[in-house]
């Protein structure tokens, strides 16, 4: 994604002949968002909690939940918010951030060269006052079966819940045809109300200083099982637009981070692979703690539960991307995101130092004390996972 983003911008700049602007490196769009000093949304995630797919043979029960859903399935939507004291618990989120949730159907498909603003879906659909937005409806199978076609539910509705939301995916024409449902979380920082933030967001008024806004898409999937699910629900006669010809494959699941591997290097640029295989490697569990020496360089690597990894053929590595986004409350890091696949493994490692060895511009905070590091891993199949650990700097 980074490549494409840079490419678009470079092409645009080229077209516009901005000769004084260079855009050589693929990471020139990099913005240091990795340093956390106030509440920040780092990820949203859908998880199917009531699957209507009955695998044959059944999927192992210890696999991560699916990230894509089919109509009439129940999904859970949770959010990862971190602040200077580390990840916020659901209780903290519910009391301090007080999020409200909106869903929108009928979003304009994005384009390659001109990406559509995802929030356009909310802007285009009146009303612009939170109080005038009705709650999302629970689909009635009987009514749908009676009409014979999926109903159109274009527009926005409000989802009930705070830190975690549960919702039954509607059987709507927009969801089936567009393939996604957009959900936005609108929260507030101290001194503001979530309703006020929602009204500002919907009215396109300034909201950055006091509000937290994030959105995520729930994708339809696996598409090749759609008819099976509808048939199972008594909607065999439902008329659908021709669906895509997705080849049958494993369901797209979220990612679970089993732990972290931590190694020390002497200098930036030292071979990381050897460190991660070496005897001095330290493993830390999620929410665990690690003791570090001030100003040393550490290589951090998230370990993803192998059972959740989607099997890929040897020649399919270029069809999937995987990114690890790192956040920290103090110190400096070399890059915020990794997305390389190299020599049979995903290079999601990250180099961090409690001091300013990696970037003076990114160094902030104390040289000793407790530092929280947080990682979010995404793959190109809608899978999301996150985990944190603490570093005690001596």
């Amino acid at each position, binding site marked *: 994604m980074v490549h494409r983003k840079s490419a678009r911008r470079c092409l645009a700049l*080229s077209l516009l002949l901005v000769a004084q602007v260079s855009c050589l490196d693929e990471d020139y769009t990099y913005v240091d968002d990795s340093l956390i000093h106030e509440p920040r*949304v780092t990820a949203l995630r859908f998880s199917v909690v009531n699957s209507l797919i009955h695998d044959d043979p059944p999927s192992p029960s210890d696999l991560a939940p699916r990230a894509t859903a089919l109509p009439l399935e129940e999904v859970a939507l949770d959010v990862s918010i971190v602040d200077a004291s580390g990840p916020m618990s659901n209780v903290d989120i519910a009391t301090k951030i007080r999020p409200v949730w909106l869903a929108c159907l009928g979003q304009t498909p994005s384009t390659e060269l001109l990406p559509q603003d995802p929030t356009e879906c909310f802007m285009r659909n009146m009303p612009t006052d939170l109080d005038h937005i009705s709650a999302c409806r629970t689909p009635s199978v009987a009514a749908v079966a009676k009409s014979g076609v999926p109903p159109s539910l274009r527009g926005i509705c409000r989802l009930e819940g705070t830190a975690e939301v549960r919702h039954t995916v509607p059987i709507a024409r927009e969801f089936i045809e567009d393939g996604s449902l957009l959900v936005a979380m609108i929260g507030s920082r101290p001194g503001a109300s979530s309703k006020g933030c929602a009204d500002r967001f919907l009215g396109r008024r300034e909201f950055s200083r006091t509000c937290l806004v994030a959105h995520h898409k729930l994708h339809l999937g696996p598409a090749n099982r759609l008819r099976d699910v509808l048939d199972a629900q008594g909607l065999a006669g439902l008329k659908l637009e021709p669906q895509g010809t997705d080849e049958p494959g494993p369901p797209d699941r979220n990612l679970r981070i089993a732990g972290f591997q931590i190694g020390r290097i002497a200098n930036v640029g030292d071979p990381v692979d050897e460190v991660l295989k070496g005897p001095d490697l330290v493993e830390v569990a999620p929410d665990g703690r690690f003791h570090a020496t001030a100003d040393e360089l550490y290589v951090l690597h998230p370990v993803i539960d192998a059972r959740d990894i989607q099997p890929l053929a040897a020649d399919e590595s270029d069809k999937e991307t995987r990114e690890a986004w790192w956040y920290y409350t103090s110190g400096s890091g070399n890059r915020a995101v990794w997305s390389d696949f190299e020599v049979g493994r995903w290079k999601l490692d990250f180099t961090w130092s409690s001091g300013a060895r990696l970037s003076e511009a990114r160094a902030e905070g104390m040289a000793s004390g407790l530092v929280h590091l947080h990682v979010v891993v995404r793959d190109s199949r809608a899978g999301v996972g996150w985990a944190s650990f603490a570093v005690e700097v001596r």
Partner: protein
Amino acid sequence: MEDSRPAPCQACSRSTVHASTVHIETHSMVRTEARMGLLPHADRSDRSPSTDSRPPHTAGVNNPVCMKAARPSLLSVSDSGPPDGRANADKGDLVLRPEISLSRYVLRAPSRAFSRCWTLVGVCCLVMLAHPRAHAAVLAPRSSASPGTTDPSQGAQLARVLRLTGTVKRAGRRTPVVGARVTVLALSPTGDGVPIATETDEDGRFEFEDVPVGAARVVITAPGYERYDGEITIDRDGSRRTEYYLKQAAFNPYSTLVKTRRADRSLHEHRLERGEFETLPGARGDPLRAVQNLPGMARGPLGLGLLIVRGSSPRDSGVFLGEHRLPRLYHLGGYSSVFQSNLLESIAFTPSNFSSRYGNAIGGIVSAKPRAGTTDSGVHGHGDFSGMDLNARIEAPIGKGSFALAGRRSIVDSIFGLIVRLTGGSGMPMPRYWDYQGLFDYPTANGALSVRVFGSDDRIRFVPRRAGAMVLQDNYAFHRVDLVHRARLGDWKFLLTPSYLRDIHRIEMVHSDFERREHLISDSISMRSEMQRTLGSWGTATVGSDTTFKWWNRAFAASATPDTYDQKGTIATPAVYASLRVRVGVMGVVPQIRYTQFGGAVQPGALDPRLRANWQLTETTRLVAGAGLFSQSPPLSAVTGGFTRSTFAPERASHFSLGISQDLDPGINVGISAYYKHSWDVLWMPRDVLLAPETDLSGQIPKSHSFGRMVGVEWMVRKMLTRRLFGWISYGWSRSERRQHAARPWELHPFDQTHTLSVVGGVKLPRRYRITTRFRFMSGHPYTPCVGHVFNSETGRRDCMPGVANSARLAPYHQLDIRADKTWISRRTTKSLYLDVTNVYNRTNTELMPAFGGTAEPARLGFSIFPTLGFRVNF
């Protein structure tokens, strides 16, 4: 404003000067002959010198009798006679008398010494008044031939008579000077020379049958040229043929006056003629760029050269070259136009209410008319080298016809590439462009046949330093062939012109693990046929058809997505039009109508009635008005299936305009126009700002129900400030709004510019230096501000969320450009060295950053100071 006032030296003519025919240039560039001393004073002029408002020295500059406009230069090239005329004089054939010397001295007075001139004029007049015979010895014939006539037989009294022929050409260009006055004064042994005179024909030739043998003076004058004064010797051995080269006057004020009148001819249209091209300020030597300085034209972002006419989108306006549409007017970046301007006859800019001859546009029209190649003998052309590009032209007659070939290739890309390599700096993508033109014109029995072949190719390529990073390339190109046949039969005029056009747009992105290629290629055959009949003195009727067949192919392939396609289709767009030009007294009315059947997915057709009227209120005041309907097809990328809609309505607009033109004083003209436009059924492009209409927008779902409204007032003052200063000031106020559908509020159009001020001017300095300058002040472009950051959980990035569309505005734009030229004229060539400096005081204007990735932040991306040094040779 024609002014046939004789020059102040007419005071000399109070005496009884005999038969000396002189040529006096007039303000209207119409030559007036005043036979000195033969016409009653009232006949020469109804204005006495005392009532002449012009400064005496001002009028005197161009009076060839009084003095030369500049230092005389003997530039004869070929001479079949004896090389040294003075040798004959030494033989005693001729004896120069003192009176003649006095007269010569007066005639050769340097133009810069005005006071000296008037002193000499006074001496001259006194001599003539006090000694009529002395005067007669200078100019009058001895014979008793009636005064005021040129009597060739008088020369026979002096010696044998021989034939003198010659050609008068323009120095540097070698084009014939038509209508030049050639006066030969035989320098007889007795000192009683007899002046004989004639005019050059359309080939610049002149001929004297009976020139006395011996020395003679030759004086040649022509409007717009420096006076020539030299001597020749007519040998006894035979006739003589000579070529004379006249230098174009460094400054001809009269032509500017004529321009001013022409400019107010119609407030509907701003027209630039070929004669104005070279001196047009603010054009960087490219008059097609000067269109951007005219009222009604807003500035496009980043100097891209987009045609933003009265608040319309660039794609709403059309560019026509000859009789057919041009895909684009400027090369990428807007540095130069795609057609060499020195092959153009005229450029017309019509910001609204354009003729029914033109369709498929709801904004404005720019129409450029190619010229025919030279029919003068010899080969002509030019070569031009600058820091931006290299261009050349060659033209010559072929039989009765002519041809012209021209080409241009950018070098700025090579220069910048070299800089990048040498400095190891960042990649600076610069455009590579080239264009070519080939014109052939040949007269037929009742008209003319023209063949035009031309094209353009633009490519911008970004190759990063780091191996394996993304390589980007964008390529625009077109090639066109026109065949034009015009014929005239009695009161009928006929036009038949087929044209073929291939238009290509390719985009490529290549990475080590990612590849994306797409193109949109179309082939079009256009046919325009037109008949026009003159209906006596009161009107003209025109009917015509304008049909285009287009075959298009669009393809897309990318390695990371299965959404590839390869689509093909055809579109036929026939149109018919008619107009009737009626003039009744001081009123002129032009009702017009056009019907266009848009093809493809655009339905139904559109009937566009239009009306233009003008009223000459007084001799100096003129009122014009216009109203009409206009229509166009949505972009090709929409109607060729890239969108999910199946049919589109034609985009429509109505135009209303009212203007008044007033001559305040000779040399000053003020034109004021007010307009209102309303558009509907316009395709709604959420992110169409900044991007050319050819941009691929496949995948978006357009809404073709949007509305637009534009209102504005423009005024323009053109004034010849002084004899050496010229220029104009134009100002426009406008507001352009649109809305997606009737239920949505109006929002500012992305190309709205409230204030547009252009001050362009030039000064002609001695020794053929010229400085032109342009200053522009414009309101900043509207943009959509970022009201907050929204975390996109799918990408992990925080995107800027746009606020109310176009609710913020960038800082005003202003910039000063200066160009300095120095020209040397020799007999066969004209050489110019120029320095063009853009953004002289290095203002960093804030330009709009496109809303990629959800951001809508403006960025300071303006061009810095940019000097360009160039050299040009005309021959």
